[in-house]
């Protein structure tokens, strides 16, 4: 019997996938959001996780970028 699960399909590059996986691993079990790691650049996650992932990525990006003070 074919099984269908609703969620969020994520397509990204290799480092971003690793980042999301690592982020997921850092969360307590109740908050983990990855349903399936499909391959190196594709993930299937819970639908509500979109905002959470985006803000984690943007925080990470800010950490790694230098902005010249005025």
């Amino acid at each position, binding site marked *: 019997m074919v099984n269908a699960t609703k969620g969020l399909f994520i397509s990204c*590059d*290799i*480092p*971003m*996938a*690793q*980042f999301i*996986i*690592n982020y997921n691993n*850092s969360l307590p079990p109740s908050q983990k959001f990855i349903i399936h790691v499909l391959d*190196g650049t594709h993930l299937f996650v819970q639908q509500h996780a979109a905002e959470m992932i985006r803000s984690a990525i943007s*925080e*990470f990006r*800010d*950490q*790694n*970028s*230098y*902005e*010249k*003070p*005025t």
Partner: protein
Amino acid sequence: MGHGEKSHRPSKKHKSSAKESIPVEDYEAYVGGEELDDDVRGDGEVKKRDFTKLELKPDHMNRPLWACADGRIFLETFSALYKQAYDFLIAIAEPVCRPESMHEYNLTPHSLYAAVSVGLETQTIISVLDKLSKTKLPKEMIDFIHGSTANYGKVKLVLKKNRYYVESPFPEVLKKLLRDDVISKSRIIPEGANGNGGFTISKTLGEIAADSSGLLNEAELAAAAEEKETHAFEIDPSQVEKVKERCLPNALNYPMLEEYDFRNDTVNPDLDMELKPQAQPRPYQEKSLSKMFGNGRARSGIIVLPCGAGKSLVGVSAASRIKKSCLCLATNAVSVDQWAFQFKLWSTIRDEHICRFTSDSKERFRGNAGVVVTTYNMVAFGGKRSEESEKIIEEIRNREWGLLLMDEVHVVPAQMFRKVIAITKSHCKLGLTATLVREDERITDLNFLIGPKLYEANWLDLVKGGFIANVQCAEVWCPMTKEFFAEYLKKENSKKKQALYVMNPNKFRACEFLIRFHEQQRGDKIIVFADNLFALTEYAMKLRKPMIYGATSHVERTKILEAFKTSRDVNTVFLSKVGDNSIDIPEANVIIQISSHAGSRRQEAQRLGRILRAKGKLRDRMAGGKEEYNAFFYSLVSTDTQEMYYSTKRQQFLIDQGYSFKVITSLPPPDSGADLSYHRLDEQLHLLTKVLTAGDDAVGLEQLDEDVDDIALHKSRRFSGSMSAMSGANGMVYMEYSTGKNKNGKGQMKSKPKDPAKRHHLFKKRFA
């Protein structure tokens, strides 16, 4: 107004979180470690700087600049008056950025102090600025100039016939100073003092302003060029430092300018040296000298020229003009050799009149005047010296030096400066540097310990003139491999982050690709820089290239450099940060940087400086010439890591000088690279294991040895508490590698990295 003050209010939320995550390596272990952290932002909101109400002059099109009430000045470089305006602005203001079309400057108390000390008067500054300005000058700026210059430059300390005089054209100022107890007690009252408050009155030649071309050479300057009446009183030589201190801004606020009337110095013997005819100073070198010798005397101060632009010729020229004994201070033994060489190259000084004083060579000059080249450390050293050294240092101490020539003043800590200056008695101090990083608070120390900035060249103008190489800068983005990035992100690997992003196989492949490209396609000579010793050895071994780092012996170093210079088979050399400034490799024209010290803007500029020395014919190098780009600077960066943050930060100084970094995102190109290293996953995984099993300390930064860079050692001692890196147990990492291309395998390997304490001991031993 531009006081260089920074707001230290809490930064914006996400900024501060970014800040916290910057790891321990941000502490400044690098030579100096003095760059002020400028990451602390203001509240992130841009202050409204609305100066639209300034009145535009009808002929504003013909004027080159805008001046704002907060001290910021904008200069059009395409204006017909650019050259004059530049010379003027660099004398009165600090450059903020100088790209192609528009320069920005800040008027600060320091910059105005410098302006006054090269002979510009308050009224001249204001009226020339007003002439150049497209708008009427803001009242705030005029007030600021008045306020800042009211006291500056009014008082001079002059050493005349070995007697110290406090000199001023304003007798009322001298009277004011004499109301101070310390100063009045230091005064030596001449016999038969007459009515003028007892001051000696004399005439001095006014300023022969170097920049008096065209616009600036008007009534105001004409007035300045007239003979001026000066008043003076003598002070006790033993009290000079105390008097100077009383005059500093935090006390009486009449900082004294120091000038040396060397032509009238009949006490100190002359040194027979002239510039050789073939030593033709370039226009900007001439300009810096004219700032220094503008009124026929020698002024103390700092001259800023990019690396490779010929600082040494300026230094040698200054010494040749003063023609008195000269003490030349460099940062390390290698530079000492180079300075001695430069003196002989450019001047007619006889060999017996120049000597080197280092741990290895303790020479002495013959006759009653000469040049001594040594290091800051040799002079400032506080421990026990050898008998021989003690004698030499005693001579240095006792001699009255005509010129104290100080190289790389930006790397020398202030305490060391104080010490050196206290030990040596000199009439004139000239500091040279390439990178005066402006956030540096040390600039204050430099200002009062040496003197104001006398001149600063514009990098882009020198590039356009063909005086320094036109460098193509590129930032090569190397994506992390999946496995390396997964490890990088793990909390438990926080101490290995640097090793992981430096050893990123994609970075290695980009490096290998670039080396091949430049060696094979262009026949270039390449320096690869890595601060991280683990990476340095891994890369050099894997690519079978020679490498030099702190522990490489002098003999081997010389051998490698000689091969690099002469052999057609040795075209790439790997250098640790020992190569940042103390190794001279004029043949190199390509730099590949695989790891660096955190966010040091100075290191970036210094490394670029390694390839700035212009090669080939001048006409080929000029804009549009056939070798317009003949030098390449690549910075390899692992994307999505902290290295990105540092990389951008490091570039800021160069970017402000008008350099731009082109981002290259795919190296090697997608259709190639199968023949490069780490193409296969198993090789990559093997490398990963190596990185992960190496001790946390082993994969950190290199700590320099004493024979590499004296100043660095001095610093690392001070920081030794925070560096567990070399504590012994991790010796095994070094065991695996030999230095460079060593035929007999482990022949010259270091048995164990040195314990900082022990190294300190070794350092002592050299002098004992």
